[in-house]
């Protein structure tokens, strides 16, 4: 899976309340959920983000609650891949399950800035920054995870198997 997209950059410990505030947890339609992506940290994010864009973040991205809405809102608002120094456990799992690629890449916040264009090879974990021409290597995703991502998540995988 090869991906190319524009960076939206965030700091450390971005929690699920910032990604998707608790007052919207009653929503169940994905189109409605998509309207509140990153609202707790940048209320303008949904207006700026386009299909295929990337999130680059610091440590422990997605910490806090187990809400799957946090993944649905990012995916449905157009975010294609999240690259972070590290991820919180439940969020990471939810992303894989819903087919949103996540890559752990120590050093990424140093080497990528807002609006940079990155090319990503999910299979090798290689990330190339077109703006500063630097290449970084993210942690290798297991075959099992790549297989789920290739199918677009657990649900299509189960349906197709």
């Amino acid at each position, binding site marked *: 899976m090869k991906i190319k997209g524009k960076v939206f950059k965030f700091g450390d*410990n971005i*929690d699920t*309340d*910032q990604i998707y*505030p*608790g*007052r919207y*947890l*009653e*929503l*169940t339609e994905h189109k409605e959920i998509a309207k509140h992506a990153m609202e*707790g*940290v940048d209320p303008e994010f949904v207006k700026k983000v386009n299909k295929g864009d990337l999130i680059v973040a610091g*440590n*422990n991205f997605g*910490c*806090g*609650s*187990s*809400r*799957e*809405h946090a*993944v*649905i809102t990012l995916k449905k608002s157009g975010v294609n891949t999240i690259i972070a120094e*590290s*991820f*919180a*456990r*439940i969020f990471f*799992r*939810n992303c894989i*399950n*819903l087919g949103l690629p996540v890559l752990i890449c120590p050093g990424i916040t140093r080497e990528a800035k807002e609006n940079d264009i990155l090319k990503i090879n999910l299979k090798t974990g290689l990330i190339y920054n077109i703006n500063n021409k630097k290449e970084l290597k993210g942690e290798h995703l297991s075959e*099992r995870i790549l297989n789920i991502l290739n199918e677009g*998540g*657990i*649900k299509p995988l*189960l*349906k197709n198997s």
Partner: protein
Amino acid sequence: MHAVEKILARASGNDEVSSSNIVTANVDFVEINDLYLQVIKSFYEMNGYKVWNPDKVSFVFDHYSPSPTIKAADNHKKMREFCRKQGIKNLFDINEGVCHQVLPEAGLVFPGMILVATDSHTTTHGAFGAFGTGVGATDLATILISGKLWFKVPEVVKIEINGKLKSGVMAKDIILHILGDLGQSAAVYKAIEFTGSVIEELPVDERMALCNMTVEMGAKTSYIQPDDITLNYLKQRVKRDYTIPETDKNYKFANNYNYDISNLEPVAAKPHSIDNVDYVKNIEDVKVDQVFIGTCTGGRVNDISVAANILSGKKISENVRLIVIPASKEVYKKSIEKGYIQSLIESGATISAPGCGPCLGAHQGVIAAGETCVTTSSRNFPGRMGSTEANIYSASPYVAAYSALRGKLAYK
């Protein structure tokens, strides 16, 4: 092997497992809360027809309970219908309380079990020697279909706590102190075991508070070796046999931390992260608009008794709203029997129905821009309890009660 590994080994049919192994384990019990209609949607999207075992499934209405909006009411309605259709008897409706309090009270949590719930604070059940962990809707739906889930066997971190607790210092202070020291990503994907002389003396309510907040360090699960205090709690409730796992003597922990808490004083996590911890004595000039005592972290009988004892016969500051929400119906009833609720109401408190209350910013005491709230709940992320322009201080019920009394952050 560690006791946590033995739980995963038994449930996955392996003689031995070790950290970073991926195992597929039989899940003993699941809980779905009222934020997660998506579980039912995912269940049907994945061609689910009948849940694998209706007696091992529970629904708890706590986060949006009683329903504050038509949408939340509709979600509850659909969940009740699902329970009826699937023969799920463990439906804890709006009159019961927070899942992590309700399940142990109902005797559904026991040592050595694997408990999976759609809530990050499922780590709480390590207080009973159970493997409790939180997942999202899709993972939970796969369990509803198959009864199984894959797990990465976690490394185990040991935190030993010795010394003698000063008066006015609670489990909440201990865990905040540890969070302040180690940081909020110190245990991502790991299990945390608590041991030491302080743990041996802690009552069940306080052990639960400690284990509850391990997820704020990123932990996958937590563990306290069951002892007489645990068994005394369980014997009145659990109606089935269980085996208590024990860690092998030669087990090597991924990390060992030692704390002597004899000099620990009341602390609070300042805005806007839970590891931004300071002594209350250093931040006493902070004026407070609202105090909240409740939730799966700080709404148990012990918490309410601490607050009632401080506020009995006194009036809270006229500048403060005090909201008290017992974690469950049982907590509520006991607190009434003991006279705590009467004392709190007379001091000026507002009591709301058992549930999560304003912890997640949905209802029952959401805060406005520019306001400051002291809460016994576990999170102070920006916007967690309402406006992103509000300030949240997370502290013990002891600090919360004194803060309500003084109208500012206080511990005496």
